[in-house]
């Protein structure tokens, strides 16, 4: 009897302990930090307890029957051959159906609720999923950034999600999600794009990011803070390293952040290592990267591309390479030396830079606050 009981109580206890004992989890759907994540959580919790109750009843009956009706010595003969009971069958068909109907009603209302475009003072952001990093474009604010999604607290953030690829062609990937399925010619940059999924559990559930279509979702943070997220749909070699953070600011701080991001980067003074770095970047890196404020010797702007992350305010971000690496000099050097060896499958190739060139680039990148 004990063993049968253990068999059921064991996994149950484990699950309960587990729920309490991962306090360091920072990507925790059980700790919603905004109204949209709370909607999903508010459905999950009661359903979980209903399921737990059913679990106890059913497993309890199982354990009880298996104990009570075990064969005991001296009890010979064959038990009465009961074939069934139609009333019971009807009862245990209807009762679960009713319970499920009860679960279905709030489920359906929440489905429609979450699918609605939010009203009021909404912040619009386009989320573009690349292999293997996230691009964030704010159409109304006119800024483009990567790896960190900055939002104000207390405002709904309406996201358009689209997948973008990078071929070896030197195309400019659009930093804008089309509102609907593409009409007419499809951007060639779709040719190498794969499915991703945008997930920051403390702020919202996922929606997939699918080439050729634009999905939408809403999230909102109640309080300032940093919330981590990552790609949830298997997307190739470095799927595990396609991460991002959502940085929630008070509205004032957010406005300040936007203003900072709008400002172009200043060119470093001539003759400095940073200036040399800017020259290297202008020569090689603008095939995929863009820096607002990069100028050639005549002071004319050098246009880049947004196949890769926009670097204008690179040093203002705490992580890079799809948030695989913390932004610091050591990591930057490792990365610039040979990106594919750091991140499997990286589209950024090894440019065989000399250590001196790397130092100059690091110096320049550090000026891009």
């Amino acid at each position: 009897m004990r063993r049968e009981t253990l068999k059921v109580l064991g996994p149950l206890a484990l699950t309960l302990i587990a729920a309490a004992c991962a306090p360091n989890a920072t990507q925790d759907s059980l700790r919603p930090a905004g109204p949209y994540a709370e909607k999903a959580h508010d459905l999950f919790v009661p359903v979980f307890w209903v399921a737990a109750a059913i679990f106890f009843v059913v497993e309890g009956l199982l354990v009880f029957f298996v104990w009570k009706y075990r064969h005991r010595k001296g009890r010979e003969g064959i038990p009465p051959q009961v074939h069934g009971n139609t009333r019971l069958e009807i009862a245990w068909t209807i009762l679960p159906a009713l319970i499920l109907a009860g679960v279905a009603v709030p489920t359906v209302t929440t489905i429609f609720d979450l699918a609605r475009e939010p009203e009021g003072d909404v912040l619009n952001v386009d989320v573009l999923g690349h292999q293997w990093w996230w691009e964030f474009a704010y159409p109304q604010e006119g800024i483009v950034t990567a790896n960190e999604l900055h939002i104000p607290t207390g405002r709904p953030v309406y996201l358009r999600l689209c997948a973008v690829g990078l071929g070896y062609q030197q195309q400019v990937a659009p930093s804008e999600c089309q509102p609907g399925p593409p009409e007419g010619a499809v951007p060639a940059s779709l040719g190498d794009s794969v499915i991703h999924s945008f997930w920051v559990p403390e702020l919202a559930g996922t929606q997939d990011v699918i080439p050729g279509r634009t999905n939408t979702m809403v999230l909102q943070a109640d309080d300032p803070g940093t919330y981590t997220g990552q790609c949830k749909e298997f997307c190739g070699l470095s799927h595990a390293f396609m991460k991002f953070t959502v940085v929630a600011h008070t509205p004032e701080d957010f406005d300040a952040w936007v203003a900072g991001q709008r400002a172009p980067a200043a060119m470093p003074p001539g003759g400095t290592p940073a200036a040399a770095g800017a020259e290297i970047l202008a020569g090689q890196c603008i095939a995929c990267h863009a820096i607002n404020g990069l100028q050639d010797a005549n002071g004319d702007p050098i246009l880049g591309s947004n196949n890769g992350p926009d670097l204008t305010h690179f040093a203002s971000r705490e992580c890079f390479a799809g948030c695989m690496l913390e932004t610091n000099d050591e990591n930057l050097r490792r990365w610039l030396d040979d990106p594919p060896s750091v991140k499997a499958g990286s589209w950024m190739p090894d440019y065989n830079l000399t250590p001196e060139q790397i130092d100059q680039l690091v110096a320049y990148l550090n000026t891009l606050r």
Partner: protein
Amino acid sequence: MASVSVPAERPRGLLRRPTAITGLWSWFTTVDHKKIGILYGVTAFAFFIVGGTEALLIRLQLAQPDQNLISPGVYNELFTMHGITMVFLVVMPLSAAFFNFLIPLMIGARDVAFPRLNAFSYWAFLFGGIFIYSSWFLGGAPNGGWFGYAPNSVLDPTRGMTFYAIGLLITGIASTVSAINLAVTIINMRAPGMTLFRMPVFIWMGLVVQLLLAFSLPIITVGLVELLFDKRFGTHFFDPAAGGDPLLWQHLFWLFGHPEVYILILPAMGIVSEILPVFARKPLFGYQFVVFSGIAIGFIGFGVWAHHMFAVGLGPVANTAFGVSTMIIAVPTGVKIFNWLGTLWRGDIRFTTPMLFAVGFIAMFVIGGLSGVTHAVVPSDYQQTDTYYIVAHFHYVLFGGAIFGLFGGTYYWWPKVFGRMLDERWGKVQFWTMLVGFNLAFGPMHVLGLQGMPRRIQSYPESLGLTFWNLVSTIGAFVIALSVLLFIVSAVRSFRRPREMSADPWDARTLEWATSSPPPVHNFDEIPVVHALDEVWHRKYAETEGGRVVPVPAGGSGEGGRGAGAHAIHLPGPSYYPLVASLGLPIVGYGLIFGWWLVAVGLVVMVGGLYGWVLEPSAE
């Protein structure tokens, strides 16, 4: 079943039919469903070891954060092959092993409807599995997940997903052909008196599974062909740059993929429905309701597929429809569970190893089923999908469910197949080890998923706070491995015992126990005449006025008249053409990758094999 054809031609050379039914070579030419069942079982078990090893490597890599024991590229191959192996090369063929061995015996037939086609199915399965695995040595194994989502699977530059598409097409042919064969067998070859509602539940579940296979496999066949063509010939089925829709792949895959999970679980449910009554000494509670709920699950199973796609943006109406249909399918599933409980109620339960696995099945499947219901709560699924919470769910139903059920069936029918018992003490140790290991491995995954761990990631950082439960899960995986080792030792030891087994060592209920253990090559000396559900039980026991059950004296009223088969028994003879014909399939497969001349060779072998098959004389 006898085959009578036109007077045979003088057998010429190539068309001379083999005759041996014993010896090593006879395994290659056998058309005996019992031998084919054993072949399926052994092969599937070998793949189980391989797939399990892949799992252990995955768990080693994930035991600690930020590890690089296994590179991302290899890791992607490992989890892809683990999924493909367990679904297509383990659970499906293990179920096929049971179906092949038991269906004719349980319905009182001498073999399946088309014995050579049956052999063909086995060889095609084996060659398909070998074909997929040969990819490790020929440019890289499949690495796009067992679900192979496009465009990633199309764009991957290695050959891996091409091997995936072709390999699954080959195994799909094997399964489709087998499904038709077994469905016709069940529908058309039952012993006299065995009406549909006197068939064992295992046979009913078998029928539903064959029909699910016959109607779902063509859909994935089309999907796989489209994937193969996109990769190999530059078509645009899933190419967004040409206006194609990656979701087309998902719809085709899951229209198959969802019925597939019922294909995976219904056989084990059938097994449990046979084991519980025998060791509770009572009939299955609510037989018709268990049968109808199985049929209902089969039907509704075709209507829930997009619950794997809740987060792709189909819209609230579609998500609602599929969320509701998914909740609906929980109802017949619950009906089965309650009827199993009813079978135990007021029984006289003996805890043999098969019974332990059957009860363990119910306990674990309930957990998996309940987590499944939470997935149907669509907005909550937006959090759960693609995390380890889902991994926990399907391992509870596929391992705690299907694998436990199949192990139970293995212990239960081992004496019938091999004429020896598996040692009961080893069996109990094996069961408890497996149960503990299984729960340690997969229980924590519920937590890991809800607290931020996505699927299919090669590593995770320390900062996510998920280290402890990942380590526990890895330990659990190794405990499972230990339990499988225990099983292997027990199996080997059983063959040291002499082959002396009675026809009915468990005091069971169904027709396979009416013949010797193992059965003679012709299954039954006389085809039985069936008068009731649980025919064998009723031949042994009768109910008195007071509801008491008393043994029937031997040779008493149970035996009813002589069935067909009182005359000479004709059996289908062995043949090597099924093997030859099926060999053509992987050759064509390699040809699609390496050169058209090889395709031509494969077609010649296949067509040649088929013509030999058609032209060879039927053996008497």
